[in-house]
């Protein structure tokens, strides 16, 4: 009787343990899948300055909101239960309100867990994302207009965004002032996206993983290698002597076609040519 009891007790114990273990395992599966899903941050959500790589961020951030509280412009928010962002983590949306890039970076100072890297001392070194002029079909500057707003509001004007001149083929006589973002300076603050005058911004701050291409390790640009070596590495440089117009030379260091003034049959002053014609046909 006693033995039977102990066997039945043991069975009961094993059954209970198995049941508990399976229930918890099921819960773990659900949790694991859910964790995988929310690991991908929506492209519109930007982490505060100094945020470490997203995967590490999710293991470091304790979701205390101290960065949110110390942000003097109330830009940062904590993700709520209904957001598609990993719950409780801080973020901002550039189109709604962009980072003001405080010099003393209070949000990073407030972080107790190292999710925001304290080695970030100069806000210009922040890389919250990368601005990308994502729609050339609606960007007013691409239509030949002088909107320039993204360029003007950029805290690193002429470094992070420059206006590059291109020929306007529509009018034939104007320039296009093309906003070009430079990843070596852009902090991803989102001022440009916020300020874009269109209904939907043509320039947007995207996560680096979406915004940036990456060359293969093996890939080399010939002209850069040539500059590094100080000479051509393959064949000796040759002038395009047969194809160039008379009096023109070609500069391989980037200037392109240049005029060799000593060798030009025409005067640099166009009036001289006109005068010569009137002299010949009085």
């Amino acid at each position, binding site marked *: 009787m006693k033995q039977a009891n102990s066997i039945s007790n043991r069975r009961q114990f094993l059954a209970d343990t198995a049941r508990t273990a399976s229930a918890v395992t099921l819960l773990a599966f659900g949790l694991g899948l859910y964790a995988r899903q929310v690991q991908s941050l929506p492209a519109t959500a930007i982490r505060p300055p100094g945020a470490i790589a997203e995967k590490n961020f999710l293991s470091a951030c304790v979701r205390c909101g101290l960065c949110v509280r*110390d942000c003097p412009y109330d830009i940062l928010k904590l993700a709520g239960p209904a957001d598609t962002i990993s719950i409780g983590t801080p973020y901002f949306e550039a189109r709604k309100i962009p980072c003001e890039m405080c010099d003393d970076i209070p949000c990073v100072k407030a972080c107790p867990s*190292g999710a925001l890297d304290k080695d970030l001392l100069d806000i210009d070194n922040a890389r919250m994302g990368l601005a990308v002029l994502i729609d050339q079909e609606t960007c007013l500057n691409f239509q030949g207009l002088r909107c320039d707003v993204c360029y003007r509001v950029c805290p690193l004007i002429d470094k992070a965004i420059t206006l590059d001149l291109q020929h306007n083929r529509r009018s034939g006589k104007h320039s296009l002032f093309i906003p070009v973002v430079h990843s070596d300076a852009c902090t991803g603050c989102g001022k440009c996206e916020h300020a874009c005058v269109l209904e939907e911004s043509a320039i947007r701050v995207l996560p680096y993983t979406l915004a940036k291409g990456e060359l293969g390790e093996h890939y080399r640009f010939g002209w850069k290698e040539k500059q590094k070596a100080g000479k051509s590495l393959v064949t000796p440089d040759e002038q395009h002597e047969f194809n160039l117009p008379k009096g023109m030379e070609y500069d391989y260091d980037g200037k392109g076609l240049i005029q060799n003034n000593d060798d030009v049959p025409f005067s640099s002053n166009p009036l001289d040519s006109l005068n010569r014609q009137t002299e010949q046909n009085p």
Partner: protein
Amino acid sequence: MSATIYPGKAAVETYGWLQAHKWLLLRRLSQTSIFVLFLLEPMAGIWIIKGNLASSLIFDVLPLSDPFLLLQSLFAGHALETTLMTGTLIVTVFYLLVGGRVYCSWVCPLNMVTDLAARLRGKFKIKGGIHFSRQLRYWVLGMTFIMATVTGTMAWELFSPVSAVQRGIIFGMGSIWIIVMAVFVFDLFISRHGWCGHLCPVGAFYSILAIPSLVRVSAVNRDQCDDCMDCFTVCPEKQVINPALKGQEFNRGPVILSANCTNCGRCIDVCAKEVFKFSHRFKNSSHIPVVGNKEARS
């Protein structure tokens, strides 16, 4: 079961309503004032404490951090940061003094929700539901660490109603009411004391953290016990009472040593015979006859 209409009726009749709800009222005061302190800044611009229960800063100097979060972060593969470690240390020492699950009964905002569910369950005589093992929470606790390691993120924090609700209150997220309702309904209809008493890994963690904690409830006057069962009825972890209250004949001391006692003090409130009071773990000799002589009882 008790012959009284509701647990604690005898105590109310003997000592008055206020005295018979003393610890309950103090706990509600503690639970609410913590959130009032956190909300003083956004509401009134007064800096006393900022952050939330995960990690906070008092008067801009004293850091407090949740050790459960620190551990999850470690399991997820993040290195230790000094501020977080200091905060964790302070909090750990605090709970080692007052009792680990004081977090559950004096701090956690969900306690009010599950207490209400338990009370309504008693009042409307809602019976049945799923029965979980009291050990389940330790399995869940282990699972949170394993999942942190497997996913490389604090996976539990994505789900944790405790974290979501306390954060939601402090940072004004309306949608946390869904979570509050879910826990309430779960405790009311699906499982008695289901969340706090069986599932929640936060409580499980704090119970382990402060196994040797100092402040404990003691059934000092257990000789006076008239077996009215009121303390068993109100206790959210009723299995912890018996060893202390009925331990005399086994030569056990009167102190409730189980790490799952939340030090909520409800047993002290509802006992008309003043059997229980707050004491400490070292005052646990079973040989001190408190009232009368113990041989006579056995």
